[in-house]
Structures are given as structure tokens and as C-alpha cells.
């Protein structure tokens, strides 16, 4: 009997009317269709259709921004399943950590992934900032995107910091107590700021709930909005800029 090979199966699939209703362009063997792949796809069309070859070199970006985004994807993919087991209340939050560790299948693995992903994200974002700085890639026309990046770094730190309280163990409690006491030193608004952040005078169940909402909803949403602007601006500013030995951009201050 003649079993169909994987190739012919793929060919058949691509001929079906269902597939053709989703993906309108034909095979990927022509430049025209390769453009269509990128701009007919909601997710891929953050890319330009063509990129400068040299921007793909390792030393151009060291892929550091990309590493940070991959971490973010991993954090969402692991954070959402963790939410199914996590109750932001005292002492249940801590019990949930134990349950994830000892009871839930792969719970400890997901939690580890989430934790190390968070560390790598902070580290990656920081290194990415340094590479942008030393390549002079904050210079016009990229000024605004640099500022967006600074916001992204701060948001990443806040995300990580709010996440740090969630396990409700000794590390979490005292790390956050000391940190929020620092906010108290800010002139005039310090005390109020801390009160609002914690929802009380001390790190307590209110604080846990507030940090949880910030960590799982508010900060990720804001981060993704900034990230969207960041990626969009890369294209609008003419693609990534590499080491300054490259030919400098033509740029006119009087740009409208």
C-alpha cells in the first residue's frame, strides 16, 4: 500500500479550502509570498518585510532585547498556570507554594521556570540597555525609544518586586518590608505612598492582595503597552543600530 509521505500530506493540507481561507498566500518559494507571510499575519507584521542584512549579525544586538522578550513570554506562559493554584491570602499563599512544591505535578518545575525566567529577564533588560548605550543607539532619531526602554526597565523591576512578595515566606515579607520602608523616606508623599501601596500601615494581607493585582494584571498590561510602542518605534526609527563603526545615520534635526 502506498502510504502518503509527510510532504504530500503537507501539500494536501495546503490545498484544502479551510487552510486557504486562513492563509491566503501560496507557497513560500517566491519573494512576493515571503512578503505576504509577514504582512498578512497579525503577529509577524511587527517585522518589516525586508531587513538590513548586517542587523542580523550577532554583534549588532547580541540578541539581548530578544532574550528579554523570550523571558517575558516564558513568564506569562508559566505565570498563568501558577495562578490556577495561587490564592493571594494569608496564610494560604504560603501553603500554595508548599502545595506547588510537593503535591502539584510539575508545580515546582513551573515555579522554578517562573523564578529563573524573572531573574534572566531583569538581567537581560539591563544588559540590553548597556549594549544600546555603548552602541550609541539612543541618539537621534531614537531618543524617544530609549526613554520607553527606561520605563520598560523600571516596569520589569516593579514586576519582579511585586512578585517577590507573593510566596509569603520570610524572604518575601522582609524584603518587601524593608523596601517599602524606603518609600517612606520620600519627602512629603512618602508615608502616603506606602500606605496606598500596602493598603495599611504594615505589610499584611491587604498588601499581598494589592501586590498580587499589580503583579498579575496592572503591571503586565502596562508593560505590554510599552513593549508594543518599543517594537513599533524600532521600525519607525529605521531598524536596529549596531556598533558605531557602522556608517552613521543621516539625520536632520529639522525633521518635521
Amino acid at each position, binding site marked *: 500500500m502506498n502510504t502518503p509521505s509527510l510532504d504530500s500530506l503537507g501539500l494536501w493540507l495546503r490545498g484544502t479550502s479551510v487552510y486557504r481561507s486562513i492563509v491566503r498566500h501560496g507557497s513560500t518559494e517566491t519573494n512576493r509570498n515571503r512578503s505576504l507571510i509577514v504582512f498578512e499575519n497579525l503577529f509577524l507584521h511587527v517585522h518589516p518585510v525586508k531587513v538590513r542584512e548586517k542587523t542580523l549579525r550577532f554583534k549588532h544586538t547580541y540578541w539581548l532585547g530578544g532574550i528579554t522578550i523570550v523571558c517575558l513570554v516564558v513568564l506569562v506562559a508559566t505565570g498563568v498556570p501558577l495562578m490556577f493554584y495561587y490564592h493571594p491570602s494569608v496564610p494560604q499563599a504560603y501553603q500554595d507554594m508548599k502545595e506547588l512544591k510537593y503535591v502539584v505535578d510539575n508545580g515546582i518545575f513551573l515555579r522554578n521556570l517562573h523564578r529563573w525566567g524573572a531573574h534572566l529577564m531583569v538581567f537581560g533588560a539591563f544588559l540590553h540597555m548597556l549594549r544600546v548605550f555603548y552602541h550609541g543607539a539612543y541618539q537621534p532619531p531614537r531618543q524617544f525609544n530609549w526613554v520607553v526602554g527606561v520605563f520598560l526597565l523600571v516596569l520589569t523591576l516593579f514586576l519582579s518586586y511585586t512578585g517577590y512578595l507573593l510566596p509569603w515566606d520570610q524572604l518575601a515579607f*522582609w524584603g518587601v*518590608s*524593608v523596601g517599602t*520602608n524606603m518609600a517612606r523616606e520620600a519627602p512629603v508623599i512618602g508615608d502616603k505612598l506606602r*500606605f*496606598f501601596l500596602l493598603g*495599611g500601615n504594615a505589610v*499584611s494581607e*491587604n498588601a499581598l492582595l494589592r501586590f498580587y493585582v499589580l503583579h498579575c494584571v496592572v503591571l503586565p498590561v502596562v508593560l505590554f503597552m510599552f513593549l508594543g510602542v518599543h517594537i513599533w518605534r524600532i521600525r519607525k526609527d529605521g531598524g536596529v543600530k549596531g556598533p558605531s563603526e557602522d556608517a552613521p545615520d543621516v539625520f536632520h534635526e529639522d525633521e518635521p
Partner: protein
Amino acid sequence: MSNIPPEELLLEDDDPSRRQFMNRLGLGACAVAAAGAGVVTLDFLKPKVLFEPPTKFKAGNPADYTEGTVRFNKEQRAFVIGTAGGVFALSAVCTHLGCITRYVSDEGVIACPCHGSKFDLEGNVTHGPAPHPLQWLEVAVDDKGELVVDTAVGIPHGKVFRV
């Protein structure tokens, strides 16, 4: 690309002042609404009732506090200390960033584990980053003659409760 000067691309506007007025009115309304929403949200976020533990605690009989006695109340984060002249209470919350200090009896000092501040038994800073002495707390006796300390009420440094 043609070379029309930008001025000529402006839309026609028969009544610029009217348009400007309407613009300002509309934007102003949006601003007022946004400010209102902001205030209401801030107010919403401010907890009205706090379930925080009571701040007063009983510290036992004054006679128990002979000179040099240091007792630590863990739940209330306070030291109660006996001296020749009486009794006083000291908050155990470090004035630096709020860690809980502990009494190191062999050295006779109160030490903070977080950034290395040290205090003497009257709460004065002897070492480290803490900016102020430990807070003295109000001490009273109830009708049964038992000491009562209120951790929410600070008193001036050095005001010993005479018994």
C-alpha cells in the same frame, strides 16, 4: 512628492474662534472627568477599616522589673526594661528601615539584623545607619496595678515611668 507648501494644505475654517472654543470646552470636560475619576479612584484605594492587631499590651507587675531586667514582647515588638528609677518601654522596630531588633544579652546591646545598627539599652544609636534612637513607648498601670504599654503612642526619650 509634490511641493505644496504646508500652509496651503490647511483645511478651510470659516469660524476659527468658534472651533477653538468648542475644542477647549470639549477638552476641558474630558480633563474634569479624568480628574474626577482619579480622585474617586484614589479615595477608593484608601482602606477605610484596617484589621490591624491591638496596640496595647499588658506587661506584668511593675515589681518584676528590677534594675537591668529586659523583657521582649514578640507579638508587640517592644522591650520593657527595668531601671533603678522605674520602668520604660522601647519599640523594637529599628528606626532605619523597620526590621525587628533583638537584645544581645552578652553584649548588653540591642542589635538590628538588617543593616547592622546597634543601640544601647536606652535606645540610643551606638553604631550603624539608624538615624534616630529607638522610640520610647507610653507606659501606664491599669486598675489592677499591671503595667500597660501602648505601642501606638510614643513618648519623649528618657521619660521613665516611676513605680
